[in-house]
């Protein structure tokens, strides 16, 4: 009780005097980073888990580009199963003069068989579970679609040739893609209205789906019965696969975010260790006094432990609140990326934060506090009497144990843990070496210049180890921020630059052969060049050199996907300008021999095929045997219609085809688009600019969210700096007093201190800019196959940001020492 009341009383006072602020901030920061990420991943994770079970809106989903035979429905009914049908495809819809690309989904009675559709009666109105499906003549539309078309519930919307009324706002459907909304907003309509739209005809890109649900055993039995009769074009999706995919994707994201939080956590740990050392040191006098007054070691230990626990709990409280607020802001920013409202945050992240804070404190602060217990009471008379330093083994052991425990919690996989731990140790060691190197260089450059400069740089060099730790901690936070702010825009800009100024920005798809003439007429009338109409025929590969594509072995995993996918095929007389032959030869003009095929080089590599190999495709029930006559390199960024497989002229004459075209339409020519689609409602226009904007919007928002997590890393870097400055504050106060007593002006002392921080900031900025550049070029080259252009702004921002941030925080941390009157300091010493 005595120890408790003493601990409580003195803690309250220490808190008010600011003595424990840095230690407390470091704990709160660590907890905030963890709980923010924890809340976020907890909510997303639970949303994914909730959706995973209903993501198919059925127990089994058969999907096909061709209409599904009616017998299957009947067969399913025979097994006592429920069924429902959907048909979906992208199409541009209109309201007055406005238009927007939308995913049209025709749904039949019974949809959805699992989960529920949720709608609202007006924009941002209260959500409710929908009963049944839209009445014929009406649709349910995504709020973003309504916003784009500037209409409300009750207004009408043109879908193809049909005029339909918007009956409700669609807020959720179980089979919207997992977790994140798909690019084009959805429009649900009753299947009975589909014929009136006239959007589905020969060659349309429609996905037909048959949804089946019932007792698991019946579903399995039904599937076994029809499995062998299913054409290759039919994809079957069952719940197990889908929920596994969803869960995997979300747990990968969670791990990534948790790891980023761990970086902040480890930096906070450095700050905790530093400020705990300082805290313990500051308390030594009080402990020695307590002991001289008769306090036992147990009392000292109890009081210190109680204070540590109070500190931990307070840190958890503050950190959790910050974490919750940050998470709240992040999910607010990301709200429209999620398919549905996220479940309310749970309490688990707070428990996690609490546990981690305690681990951090025990691992990084306890050794210093244990040392307190051994403070000799003699210290009341002789200030140089110190307790023996904590054993290195204890310090290294507890901190390594704490780091391992925290990492394991974030990663949850022993093998991965070893890799990450090893990686982290290696990166920290090399960063530390780089930091030491920079600090040593700074130290050497102090000769000759003014006293402030020399004093500042001498300080950096003298506290070599601590300086290096500060440079690394700060540099790490800065690296990540630079990476996220600059590299993201650099990469997008780099990609945009590879695009031609005149690159097409609109795709016209689903053009029927007879529509080419009329479309060309409209375009020509506007004085624009008529684009090339490229035929598009869909087929599926069955054999390669006589070998079944399903059983064949491929050099890379993607080969299997490439072989089994529904392929878009075309035929061309002339090699398109964005293509280049790398092997074999393009067919001569007027060629009408055996059917040949030209294969894109990556596809050829993935399939493991070369010149002379034979590919058989099944197109609309007929087989066609093709010989590879050339391999092409394709510039996919050209935004021309491009194909993995191009077939020689004449070979595809007997197959039904639609046409695609790409063209550049500037904003001022938008009305051309409207006239085109009005005249040919079944032609779909895809606006690449809009999609690019949307993609950029998503990237911006997602990186903003990640940045929010990384701001903690920078804040932890600042905490390390504060802790480091604080640990030297007595020394600084004394030095400043002596210098001023010797006649050095306060301003000069201040410039000396600022020189020191500027040097540290410069070194951090250098490390950060170098780190960000290296990472950026690796990301650009390895991930995006772009050339990374050196960006001088990144270095300017890194160095300026480093110097400014460190100077500012260092000044705030050290100003007390500089301003203390020298007489007071020297008398007290």
């Amino acid at each position, binding site marked *: 009780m005595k120890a408790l009341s003493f601990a409580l009383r003195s803690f309250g*006072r220490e808190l008010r005097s600011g003595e424990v602020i840095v230690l407390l901030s470091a704990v709160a920061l660590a907890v905030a980073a963890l709980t923010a990420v924890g809340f976020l991943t907890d909510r997303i994770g639970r949303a994914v888990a909730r959706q995973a079970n209903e993501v198919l809106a059925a127990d089994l989903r058969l999907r096909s580009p061709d209409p599904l035979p009616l017998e299957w429905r009947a067969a399913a009914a025979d097994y006592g199963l429920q069924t429902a049908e959907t048909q979906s495809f992208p199409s541009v819809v209109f309201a007055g003069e406005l238009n927007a690309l939308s995913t049209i989904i025709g749904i039949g009675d019974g949809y959805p068989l699992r989960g529920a559709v949720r709608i609202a009666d007006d924009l941002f109105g209260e959500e409710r579970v929908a009963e049944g499906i839209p009445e014929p003549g009406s649709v349910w539309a995504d709020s973003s679609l309504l916003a784009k078309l500037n209409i409300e519930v009750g207004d009408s919307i043109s879908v193809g040739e049909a005029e339909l009324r918007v009956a409700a706002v669609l807020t959720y459907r179980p089979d919207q893609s997992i977790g994140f909304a798909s690019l084009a907003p959805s429009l649900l309509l009753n299947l009975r209205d589909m014929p009136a739209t006239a959007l589905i005809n020969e060659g349309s890109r429609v996905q037909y789906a048959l949804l089946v649900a019932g007792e698991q055993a019946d579903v399995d039995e039904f599937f076994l019965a029809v499995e062998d009769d299913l054409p290759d074009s039919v994809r079957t999706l069952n719940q197990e696969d889908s929920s596994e995919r969803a869960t995997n994707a979300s747990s990968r994201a969670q791990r990534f975010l948790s790891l980023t939080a761990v970086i902040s956590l480890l930096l906070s740990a450095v700050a905790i260790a530093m400020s705990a050392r300082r805290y313990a040191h500051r308390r030594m006098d009080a402990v020695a006094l307590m002991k001289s*007054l*008769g*306090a036992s070691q147990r009392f000292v230990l109890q009081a210190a432990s109680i204070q540590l626990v109070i500190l931990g709990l307070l840190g958890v409280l503050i950190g959790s609140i910050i974490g919750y607020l940050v998470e709240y802001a992040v999910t607010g920013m990301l709200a429209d990326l999620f398919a549905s409202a996220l479940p309310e945050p749970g309490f688990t992240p707070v428990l996690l934060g609490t546990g981690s804070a305690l681990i951090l404190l025990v691992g990084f602060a306890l050794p210093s506090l244990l040392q307190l217990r051994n403070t000799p009471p003699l210290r009341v008379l002789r200030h140089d009497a110190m307790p023996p330093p904590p054993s290195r083994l204890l310090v290294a052991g507890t901190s390594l144990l704490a780091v391992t425990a925290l990492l394991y919690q974030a990663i949850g996989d022993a093998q991965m843990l070893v890799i990450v731990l090893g990686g982290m140790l290696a990166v920290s060691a090399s960063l530390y070496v780089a930091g030491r190197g920079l600090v040593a260089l700074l130290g050497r450059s102090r000769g000759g210049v003014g006293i402030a400069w020399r004093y500042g740089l001498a300080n950096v060099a003298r506290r070599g180890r601590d300086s290096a730790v500060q440079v690394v901690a700060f540099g790490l936070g800065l690296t990540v921020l630079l990476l996220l702010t600059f590299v993201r825009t650099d990469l997008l800009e780099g990609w945009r630059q590879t695009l031609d100024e005149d690159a097409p920005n609109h795709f016209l798809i689903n053009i029927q052969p007879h529509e080419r003439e009329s479309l060309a007429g409209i375009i020509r009338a506007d004085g624009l060049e008529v684009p090339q109409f490229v035929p598009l025929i869909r087929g599926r590969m069955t054999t390669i050199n006589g070998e079944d594509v399903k059983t064949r072995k491929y050099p890379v995993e993607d080969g299997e996907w490439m072989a089994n996918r529904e392929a878009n095929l075309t035929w061309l007389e002339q090699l398109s300008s964005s293509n280049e032959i790398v092997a074999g030869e393009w067919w001569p003009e007027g060629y009408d021999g055996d059917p040949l095929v030209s294969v894109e080089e990556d596809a050829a590599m993935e399939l493991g095929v070369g010149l002379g190999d034979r590919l058989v495709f099944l197109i609309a029930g007929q087989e066609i045997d093709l010989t590879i006559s050339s391999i092409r390199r394709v510039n996919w960024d050209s935004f021309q219609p491009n194909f993995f497989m191009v077939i020689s002229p004449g070979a595809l004459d007997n197959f039904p085809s639609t046409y695609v075209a790409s063209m550049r339409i500037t904003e001022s020519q938008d009305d051309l688009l409207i006239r085109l689609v009005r005249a040919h409602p079944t032609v779909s226009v895809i606006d690449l600019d809009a999609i690019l904007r949307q993609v950029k919007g998503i990237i911006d928002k997602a990186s903003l969210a990640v940045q929010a997590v990384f701001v903690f890393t920078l804040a932890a870097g600042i905490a390390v700096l504060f802790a480091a400055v604080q640990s030297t504050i007595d020394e600084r106060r004394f030095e400043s007093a002596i210098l001023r007593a010797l006649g050095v002006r306060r301003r000069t002392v201040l410039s000396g201190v600022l020189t020191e921080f500027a040097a540290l900031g410069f070194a951090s900025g250098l490390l950060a800019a170098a780190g960000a550049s290296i990472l950026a070029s690796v990301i650009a080259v390895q991930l995006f196959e772009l050339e990374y252009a050196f960006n001088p702004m990144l270095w300017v921002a890194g160095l300026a940001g480093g110097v400014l941030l460190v100077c500012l925080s260092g000044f705030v941390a050290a100003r007390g020492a500089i301003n203390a009157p020298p007489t007071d300091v020297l008398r007290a010493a």
Partner: protein
Amino acid sequence: MTSLSVPEDAVLTAENVTKQVSSPEGTLTILSDVSFSIGKGESVAIVGASGAGKSTLLALLAGLDLPTSGRILLNGTDLTALDEDGRAALRAANVGFVFQSFHLVPSLNALENVMLPLELGGNATPRKTALDILQKVGLGERVRHYPSQLSGGEMQRVAIARAFATGPAVLFADEPTGNLDSRTGDHIMNLMFELNRSSSTTLLLVTHDKALARRCDREISLDAGRLVSDRKAAA
């Protein structure tokens, strides 16, 4: 060895106390074979030049440190036979301290500082006892003030109140006026001697101040770690 008078009611006895420390230059002898005994209620000044071993002797007598050889008896208990916690418990029951730099706990107010040893020693009414003694040293109005809000003289009065609060058998004072101006120093010493007399506490004082030393019943002089004189003040 200097002859010394050993009062029958000895509160504090040093027997052949030697203290050596190791340094880069080899073993340093700070105190060499010091013996004396101090009786109940006596006031004793330990004097000597800087480095003579005064503070070391004080630390050993109070059990803050252990001698290399020899014995120290505090109220009949051999300090050198106790472990650190045992010595702390003995201090809690028998010893009070007044230091040159006051050594108040900055996070506690005046009242709490005085209550500290009372609570450590298990006093049943620490608050009342502390308030009484603060009243006695003239700080009844300032009990809620923190050390940073008090003047040097006031801080030392809090320290004296804290030292006398437990009714210790021995009060150790290390240069108690060293950080005070002479007027305040006089006031403080008057207060100490008054409390010393009224509570018949033994007072052991380390000081440079010859005038102050003369106010004590007895003066023990050290030189280079040896006891060179031990004399009673002229009545």
